[in-house]
């Protein structure tokens, strides 16, 4: 079977969806195919832009945009250096899409939020959905961590113990924990979120929490407050309790990342983008430095797709965009080169502050996001590369994965929209 489109996006992660949204906005016919659901569903659901100071990597960065400008000067190989021109507009675009879909993302006066995690650590992030955007914890007059008996992935005592240790709270700030029951059984975060969409269940939770509320307390809960991106569960719970309620970051499966993904998918479908998940692109034909068609299979059946522009948003190793064998790594569809260096791919320490080389591997691109070889020569002219596919980003340490995805996806979508007939 053959398909034709203006813009073909491969990958349903954050950068792919951003590219689709932007290209569609410019009136292009857009098709998005993906092997499965992209990794944004596994993410925090927040947009991490830049977490720490360049000079002092233990100091939380107060002005991520300015820090990125400095980064681009000292590290021109960083993906941000390729997308700096659109960084701010991409964030505005992202926030507009979220706002329009009833899932507003908030910034923290242009600086970083410092949001609690289920482990009781604090992570810097630039944009957070309203349900997660707990303000300055230094200011709060009390914290109540609420867990659910049904959930095996969230432990209020662990959160509380480490939050206390982190020293972010005032010394006399009361910090309590509470386990509530949402009807029993063993529930996944998704099943619990589904249950919480029922107002009667929320009422029961409210009854259990109320006796434990101290004046001025902020509530921290696992990220299960509502299924859809426009869910009102967190808001309703806060109103019924008369106290602000926030979701913390947790291990997958967690709802905020999934909500972001579902919202963007819904948005692009509404924009007329043809979305095909479960369709694996496994090769391409390239002639005269142009991709003439990509070769995909759906349930074992071959599909050929031709497009004027192809946006490669297939992710890193995790997403399946890169593959590897001992000593060798390559991009999986076009076989684009991936530099592996001569060093070891991983650091000795799992939690190394330097990070691991494998997380920084990827495809080198020029300022138009076109893949380039060692000499800087474009390899394929109508292909653009975005997100975790890009080389040179140490995102787990720098806290910039979703930021790079938003900016690069947006830029690719914008450039694809400018391609003439």
């Amino acid at each position: 079977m053959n398909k034709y489109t203006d813009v073909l996006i491969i990958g349903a992660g954050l950068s792919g969806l951003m590219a689709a949204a932007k290209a569609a906005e410019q009136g292009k016919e857009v098709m998005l195919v993906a092997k499965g659901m992209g990794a944004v569903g596994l993410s925090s659901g927040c947009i991490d832009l830049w977490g720490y100071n360049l000079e002092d990597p233990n100091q939380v960065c107060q002005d991520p945009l300015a820090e990125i400008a400095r980064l681009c000067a000292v590290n021109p190989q960083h993906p941000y250096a390729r997308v700096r021109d659109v960084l701010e507009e991409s964030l505005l675009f992202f926030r507009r899409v979220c706002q329009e879909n009833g899932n507003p993302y908030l910034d923290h006066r242009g600086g970083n939020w410092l949001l609690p995690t289920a482990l009781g650590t604090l992570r810097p992030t630039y944009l957070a959905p309203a349900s997660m955007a707990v303000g300055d914890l230094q200011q709060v007059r009390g914290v109540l961590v609420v867990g659910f008996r049904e959930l095996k992935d969230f432990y209020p005592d662990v959160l509380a113990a480490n939050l206390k240790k982190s020293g972010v709270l005032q010394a006399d700030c009361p910090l309590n924990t509470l386990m509530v029951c949402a009807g029993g059984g063993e529930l996944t975060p998704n099943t619990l979120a589904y249950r919480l969409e029922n107002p009667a269940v929320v009422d029961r939770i409210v009854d259990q929490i109320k006796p434990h509320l101290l004046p001025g307390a902020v509530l921290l809960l696992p990220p299960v407050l509502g299924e859809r991106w426009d869910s009102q569960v967190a808001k309703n719970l806060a109103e019924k309790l008369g106290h602000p309620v926030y979701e913390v970051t947790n291990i997958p499966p967690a709802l905020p990342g999934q909500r972001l993904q579902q919202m963007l998918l819904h948005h692009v479908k509404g924009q007329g983008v043809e979305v095909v998940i479960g369709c694996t692109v496994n090769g391409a034909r390239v002639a005269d430095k142009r991709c003439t068609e990509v070769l995909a299979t759906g349930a074992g059946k071959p599909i050929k797709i031709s497009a004027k522009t192809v946006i490669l948003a297939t992710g890193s190793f995790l997403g399946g965009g890169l593959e590897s064998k001992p000593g060798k790594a390559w991009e999986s569809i076009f076989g684009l080169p991936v530099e592996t260096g001569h060093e070891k791919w991983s650091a000795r320490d799992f939690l190394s502050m330097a990070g691991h080389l494998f997380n920084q591997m990827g495809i080198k691109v020029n300022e138009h996001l076109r893949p380039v070889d060692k000499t800087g020569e474009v390899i394929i002219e109508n292909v653009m590369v975005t997100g975790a596919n890009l080389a040179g980003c140490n995102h787990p340490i720098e806290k910039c994965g979703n930021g790079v995805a938003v900016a690069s996806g947006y830029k690719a979508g914008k450039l694809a929209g400018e391609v003439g007939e």
Partner: protein
Amino acid sequence: METDKAQVVVIGGGATGTGILRDLALRGIPAILVEQGDLAHGTSSRFHGLLHSGARYAVKDKEAARECIEENMILRRIAPNCVELTGGLFVQLPEDDPQYADQWITACTEAGISCAEADVQELIKKNPVLSPNVTRAFKVPDCAVDGFRILWGNVNSARRYGARVLTYHRVSAIHQSNGRVTGVELINQLNGQKRSIECEMVINAAGPWGGEVAAMAGLEVNVIKDKGTLVAYNHRLMNMVVNRLRPPGDGDIFVPHGTITILGTTSTTVDDPGCTKPGHDEVLALIKIGQEMVPELESYRLIRAFAGVRPLYQAGNATGGRSVTRNFALLDHQQRDGLAGMVSIVGGKFTTFRLMAEKTVDLVASKLGVNAPCRTAREPLMTPVSEELLERGKKVFGVPGARKAAERLGDSFAQVVEQVEKNPDKGRILCECEVVSLAEIEHAAHSGDSFTLGDIRRKTRMGMGTCQGTFCSYRTLGALSGYPQFAGNHWEYLTKFLQKRWKGMRPVLWGQQLREAQLSTGIYCTLFAMERMR
């Protein structure tokens, strides 16, 4: 300083040490076992998990082969929940010397090891991963054995007869007076406290650390430390042990082990008895050799590599060693060095640990004037789980969960099942890859011998499956955070555990396991910012 008394102190919590402890206890000799880490942190868990039929040694060392088959049969009887009756194969490839096979058949027959020739076509049909080039194949009574379980079985059995165990206690000195050992001094590895035990006899069963322990008593025991690297595949590639039918060499044994397959082993001499770092190059070499028997080996997913140090004994020019066989040596230091009250047991292999213990305790008992005979070959390590109990277990854990939990827990299975029957919430699975329930993890945490997440892992297999602890380590920490020993520094508990898993994953970071590593760093760094947590 706390002071204890026991007639005998056993140094080393491996298969031999725990076997000795049990033997002593069964003969009514009061004993304490001291171990610097957790039980089985060394060689006894760092091997391929093969319970030898002896066929591997039949040609080279008939005596060793005979011992193996005898011990193999004994362990099947006394520890059925630690032994998986997989059966074994010896396969010959076109490049192998066909004459070796004939020699081997004769040798097996002479050693009393059954070896029946198998229909090769039939065999490949049943085990499609095997090379289609296999020319001949023989079935032998090899099995898979679980080192952790057998060791804890030994200890639990010994405890029933009054024996004691101190894990995380390192021997810092061996006291002697007038040519006699009088006791040992210990340091608690977790809190640094000192402790001493007065005793009449010290048995050095410290495996690769045997030389270091002997040195504390001013003795010289020459232990060659031979590091072997092994790899673990993500699933059972085959349901039988597969050996290469040729003189023993590197990378020629596959052992299906629960949910995984272990391929081993390499051999390199090292200086440090604690050197358990698996090498990347050794891993690649293993795969290359293994590929001859399993051609698609490269495409299967490795979840980790690990290494153990074989303590090989070489009787040096210092004589006096009473060599029991060529494979293990029992050194009577009174006779050999003039130091009364100390013996060392060195060399040997896992399969024959019980026999080594028996010979050691025979000697010790005679010195102590005890006449009781050895009973370890007759008395089972634990009572088998009844069908009725297993059915109850299936109701709470499901079919796979119940069987695995029953095997792991042995005598404690009934207690854990009861827990879940009373409180179904405890049946939730914290380690999904290896199907380990909250109840089982709590049981391990309650045991009094668990101080780290690693200790829980060794008792339950939590964190040993596909994701290598990415999800269950956090859950286990959470579930146990109410326990005093886990309430302290979460960062430390979690980091130590994850770091140990990382050490094994690093040499195999490509393909799917590299993806897993990205997920894992994504969770602990991107989502939890744990690299900056203190």
